[in-house]
């Protein structure tokens, strides 16, 4: 599981595959004010990145992957 919840944030960790996009989208809709913690995010499928961009939520931390750093 690379999408998880804490009381303060939706946490993305490790490499998020395409199937995580739907889980992340559901989490964002369920928790409309939580920021997303991407500090431990090492890689992500474009589908996940799209959801993050569309949500435009505040991000906590900086993803590890340089390409993700550019796009998020």
């Amino acid at each position, binding site marked *: 599981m690379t999408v998880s919840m804490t009381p303060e944030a939706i946490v993305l960790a490790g490499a998020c595959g395409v199937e995580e996009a739907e889980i992340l*989208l559901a989490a964002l809709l369920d928790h409309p004010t939580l920021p997303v913690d991407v500090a431990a995010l090492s890689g992500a*499928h*474009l589908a996940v*990145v799209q959801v993050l961009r569309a949500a*435009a939520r*505040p991000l906590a931390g900086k993803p590890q992957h340089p390409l993700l750093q550019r*796009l998020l």
Partner: protein
Amino acid sequence: MDDLLPHFLVEGRELVEQAHADLARLEAAPAKGEGVDRPALDSLFRAVHTLKGSVALFAMAPAEALLHAAETRLDRARRDGSAPDVAALLAVVDQVDRWIDAMEADGALPAAAGEDAQRLIARLAGEAAPAAPASDAIPEWATVLRDRSERAAEVRTAFRYTPDAECFFRGEDPLAVVGTVPGLLHLDMVTEQPWPELSAMEPFRCYVRFEGTSAASAEEVRAAFRLMPDQIEVAALPGPADGTRAPDTPQTSAPGTLRVDAVRLDGLVERSADLSVASRALDPLVARAAALDPALADALKVAQAGIERAAADLQQAIASVRLVSLEPVLRRLPRLARDAATGLGKAVRFELSGERAEVDKQVADGLFEPLLHLVRNAIDHGIEPPQARRAAGKAEAGLLRLAIGTEGDRLRITLTDDGAGMDAAAIRRAAVARELIGEAEAAALDEEAAIGLVFLPGFSTAAAVTDLSGRGVGMDAVRTAIERLRGTIAIDSRTGQGTRVSVLLPVNAIATRLLVVTAGEQRLGVRLDQVSEIVRLDSAAIQPIGRGQACVLRDRTVPVLDLGQRLGLAPATGDHARLLVTDGSAGGRVALRVDGFGERIDGFVREKSGILARLPAVSGTTTLSDGEVLLVLDLPELLA
């Protein structure tokens, strides 16, 4: 989107600030006989481009349209080297800054925003020369991308990759594909349509297009997309046509910054204060251990010293984290000064220096209002109308200079104007007319003290209450705000030549030097920065004068008050009087008699809360090593 607004307000203003700085550099370059300042132009383009992206998240369509027009104009300047109209661009950035203020105040743009945007777009277009004809077969999107790249000089290839909407279902990850592009320099992820609402979003549909540049050849870039030839456009780019172009400033990787809620930082300050208090509690234990086992006591002492050192380091580290640049606070002042001057039909040149000085966050946060008021005052009452200035042989535009500098652990802020100066006689008359001071008393004041009368509550000399300063906030409010930050303010003015306002503030607000005093058998803390002198003298030197008492210090008569009595406690007695001398209101010095002086400590003064909040002369509390809670007095408030 509401939860995004606070972030936008911060980041939007940072971008406006960046744009202002870039515009100042662009304006300076031709004056120095140089061409267009290319790095400034690039930086301005990026700021405007990012700002455009930010405003798009909110109901700010006129701002988006205006920034788009500015971006297009800047893009052309970058391509053909034409000098952009700095004044028009400054008007655009100022307008966006005003709109950001409106978003903060009202959550929406004013009704006239659309018209304002159209007017400014027309102004931008008015100076636009016909676009240069396309010179060769290089597609325009490719050159735009090159110019948008951080290291434009290295760009050899531009690409546009439009994955089809269903590609995720085929197991493709366009991001992984882009990751294989060799020599990637710049990458944008763009959408044709605005992002859909989350609830309407299809997570497995591809919404985006990638646009980027690379330092590799077109063939190498094309090879990365060999599996999707129908989705990719690649264009080879020659080097910049103009060989003389200076290389862009090397881009250092953006330092990792983290925005932290100030409340959490304050919590850290309190926690670290608790740590040093807790370590001091070891003192009596070490003493007791010494009686039983001296070797154990020594070892304990070494351990305690280690803890104290670490606690001190921690406190210092936290203090430095709380130091913030004054820039974000001061950034809006030049624009507000221009607005204020325009509203009064005056012209003002605003010079700002030293704005990068760092100061404790508490001080930075409390500075904007008083500084804005000082700036408005200077424009309203100081700077003369253009005709009057011309008649006086001055430049039509008034000069307003705000200089910031640090002097040890103090911050000095000086606001100088070259306006009419302050008329001490008029101030005396006004103060008497408002019954703030008696006529004889006023006449006895020297020039400097007379000017100091403007700090009295209820003072205003403006013949007409103007839109600008007639808001019920006078110089007394400015002084109160500065004193709340434990600063001081002074005015120096020459009739006809101008006025200089000097503000002196502490850089660090956390650890406070305190003097422990006793009064009426109570131990109390006094901030040393509120004490100008400590005096011991013979009680006989204190003479009754009228209903009070006074003594002579340095050839000046200083009123003496009893601190204990003032607080409803027993007055000090004895042959030797101990006096704390402090600057009272209206600039005069006041001596406070106490029973005795105790130790000097570095205390962490906690804001008063609960029942203490109602005590007027108390600024907070601090905890001593033995756990005793000490009330810390606010002397100016006590004497007010």
